[in-house]
């Protein structure tokens, strides 16, 4: 070891070590850089094996020289602390730097330099790089699926207005702030539903769905005027009654026919697709799975044995099976369970299946929050004379939900990432459309571009969601 002692820097001649180190380190970087960017081999005169390891060795020695602790040079200390704490770290840092330099040129050339951006057929893509013309030509399909081109303004308009209505809550003045929950939980979903029901579809799909939604909305609104003592019975009986009333007595179907916008062409759900379908499916599943999961988690913690065990069984069942089998079930097994003349649209079946599936996960997440609350909160609420629902709505849930924001966000992210699975029932959202485009004889051989494009799209959506949930978490954090 003594022989190697001259390699260990000391403070006495700091300048010597510093300059030699920097020179050696930059030399190694320059060798790799020129090799990979300009295809210029500066050390061509050396045999292959040596020239492969030379930059690493030189750089390693260089980093070793500059590893001077407490040198009082700010930049140097920063470097040492962050990438150069010991020999092993120095080697790893060096390898990462070289890897980045080595992989940049091929990536750059594939993505930008050698890529083709213009043109509208396969012949335009002659370069060795990516063929973005492919994405450009198919962009419409990736976004809207088989939705007719001249009708696509309906999707755009719906999404823009829904986006606008969604953002509006952030600008609410103090006066309206207290209605925000009501707006987001009841009013907004209903508006969204009507947009998609009347506007994007323009036809008689979602029938049963709409009975259910309208029944639920009426009963929730009426529910505010029911004394809390009876609320439990109320919420079990009334929505079902309303549903049956609407369906079989009020001839709601005809009402819908009346209200239908005559000028709009009916686009059946089989034609929907692309990214817009991803949004529609995730949006609805998101809206439905949350309340179902909430009730399931309350049911699981309830002290009424039948409700408790039904909830446990329900949750464990959905959590135990893969989503793909659930979708299989909804597409091949579920029609067997319905009367012959009854037909539920494919998209509706999928939305119900995914909602129930994710609801089980949401339920477990919320249960975690409920369990984390100290018993004192329950006792305090009860001692104030609050009933079950009042206690949960005013005291327990606001605190519990705050605790589980990250968990719920993760479940929602999983939901968005699960939507491509609907290819099982033949609905083609963006990934499904990619696979369809890939097999088009005019455009064979561009699978890579398509997947890269879809990855970027999903990455942006999911990353934004996770960052937003992180912000929410920080915002609602309360010290205990």
């Amino acid at each position, binding site marked *: 070891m003594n022989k190697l002692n001259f390699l260990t820097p000391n403070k006495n001649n700091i300048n010597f070590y510093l300059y030699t180190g920097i020179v050696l380190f930059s030399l190694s970087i320059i060798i790799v850089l020129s090799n990979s960017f300009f295809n210029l081999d500066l050390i061509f005169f050396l045999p292959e094996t040596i020239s492969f390891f030379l930059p690493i060795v030189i750089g390693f020695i260089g980093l070793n020289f500059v590893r001077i602790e407490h040198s009082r040079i700010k930049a140097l200390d920063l470097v040492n602390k962050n990438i150069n704490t010991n020999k092993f770290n120095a080697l790893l840092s060096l390898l990462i730097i070289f890897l980045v330099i080595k992989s940049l040129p091929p990536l750059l050339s594939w993505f930008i330099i050698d890529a083709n951006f213009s043109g509208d057929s396969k012949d335009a893509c002659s370069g060795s790089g990516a063929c973005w013309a492919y994405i450009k030509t198919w962009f419409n399909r990736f976004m809207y699926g088989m939705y007719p081109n001249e009708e696509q303004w309906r999707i755009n308009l719906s999404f823009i207005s829904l986006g606008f209505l969604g953002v509006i809550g952030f600008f609410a003045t103090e006066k309206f702030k207290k209605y925000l929950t009501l707006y987001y939980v009841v009013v907004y979903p209903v508006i969204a539903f009507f947009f998609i029901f009347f506007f994007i579809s323009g036809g008689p799909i979602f029938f049963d769905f709409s009975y259910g939604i309208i029944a639920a909305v009426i009963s929730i609104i009426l529910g505010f005027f029911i004394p809390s003592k009876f609320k439990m019975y109320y919420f079990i009986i009334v929505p079902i009654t309303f549903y049956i009333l609407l369906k079989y007595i009020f001839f709601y179907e005809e009402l819908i026919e009346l209200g239908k916008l005559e000028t709009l062409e009916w686009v059946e759900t089989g034609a929907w697709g692309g990214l817009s379908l991803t949004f529609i499916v995730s949006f609805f599943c998101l809206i439905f799975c949350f309340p179902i999961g909430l009730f399931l988690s309350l049911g699981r913690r309830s002290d009424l044995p039948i409700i408790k065990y039904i909830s446990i069984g329900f949750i464990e069942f959905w959590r135990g099976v893969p989503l793909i089998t659930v979708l299989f079930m909804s597409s091949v097994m579920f029609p*067997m369970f319905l009367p012959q003349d009854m037909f539920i649209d494919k998209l509706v079946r999928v939305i119900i299946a995914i909602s129930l599936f994710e609801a089980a996960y949401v339920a477990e997440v919320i249960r975690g929050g409920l369990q984390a609350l100290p018993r004192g909160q329950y006792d305090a609420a009860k001692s104030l004379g609050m009933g079950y629902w009042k206690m949960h709505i005013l005291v327990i849930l606001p605190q519990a939900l705050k605790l589980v924001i990250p968990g719920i966000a993760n479940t929602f992210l999983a939901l968005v990432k699960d939507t491509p699975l609907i290819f099982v029932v033949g609905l083609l959202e963006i990934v499904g459309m990619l696979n369809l485009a890939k097999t088009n004889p005019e455009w064979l051989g561009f699978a890579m571009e398509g997947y890269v494009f879809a990855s970027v799209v999903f990455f942006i959506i999911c990353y934004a969601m996770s960052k937003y949930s992180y912000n929410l978490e920080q915002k609602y954090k309360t010290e205990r």
Partner: protein
Amino acid sequence: MSIKKLLPQLLTLLVIILIFGFFSYNAQVNMENRGLEFGFDFLAYEASFDIQFSLIDYDGSHSYFRAYLVGLLNTILVSVIGIIFATIIGIVVGVARLSKNYLIERTAAIYVEFFRNIPLLLQIFFWYFAALRALPLPENAEPILGVFFLTIKGLFVPAFVWNNLDVFIYSIIAAIISIVFVRLYARKKQENLGIQTPVLKISIGLFIILPLLTFVLGGVDASVEIPAIKQLSQTSFTYEGGIKLPPELIALALALSLYTATFIAENVRAGVQGVSKGQKEAAASIGLTPNQILKLVVMPQALRIIIPPTTNQYLNLTKNSSLAAAIAYPDLVLIFAGTALMQTGSAIEIVSITMLTYLTLSISISILMNWYNKKIAIIEK
């Protein structure tokens, strides 16, 4: 019990019974109309379809039940491969996330953020349709380490040809049992006398020496069969000998392990960070070496945080392996809920069997986990 508690329960029960009754009544009517009969007899019928990749003997003349077994084994195979690699990558990346080296920490963070924000299905498609399609044809493949051939038709690996394989397997079992005894003995010794035994070294030694002994004494004999290129026709080549891993399996295992590893990495990070600093400082102050601190203080506590969510991830991986159907890897869902269902038409039976299989798997693992959690939970005073 008061009426206030009884009534909602009865109502819920009634609603559920009504729904189930409605469903089963309709199912009966529908099946009668289509001339189908409910029953599991079809499991014994001849399956008459071929499966590309199978771990056990199978061809079209075998029964549907045999096909089910093939699918189940394939699912288990890809899950086990995925779990092993996901664990390795997950631990490495998780430790890298904790590194004080900025570059390493960032690289690991970018990996985690990138791979977990992209749908698994998309990743599977990417590996299968884009990345693995860029591999060379069999005749152009360069051997890796001289014996592996990675081609567009799959990965060809050398196979072992064994004599007296059973003796070898018995020796491994014997090694595992003796390792368990050594560990028990070492723990007892530490608890009673405070002396540490180098368990790891002894275990590794046992695990290597016992099986090796069988080569000398037990008449075990292994030779390696290296895949060799073979011409099928003018332009079509393949490899003969060795084991062929189909590209579907590789793509699936790759995507599953890279995706699940991100979650395991986060678990590892959270686990190690979850051990309070005071614990490490206390351990250092009573004079333990850094290695001892890691082994005796940090790891036991970190594992308690890491293991439950990681098992959950293993379960998720197993369930996610059903995405195999998308790239035609013959797993349980594709063979049974796909091909067999199309042929027999017994939708209710087949989908229920498939779901029950997964359900049994997950519930048995979660029961095990609950037992384990109870066992290792810190009993607070």
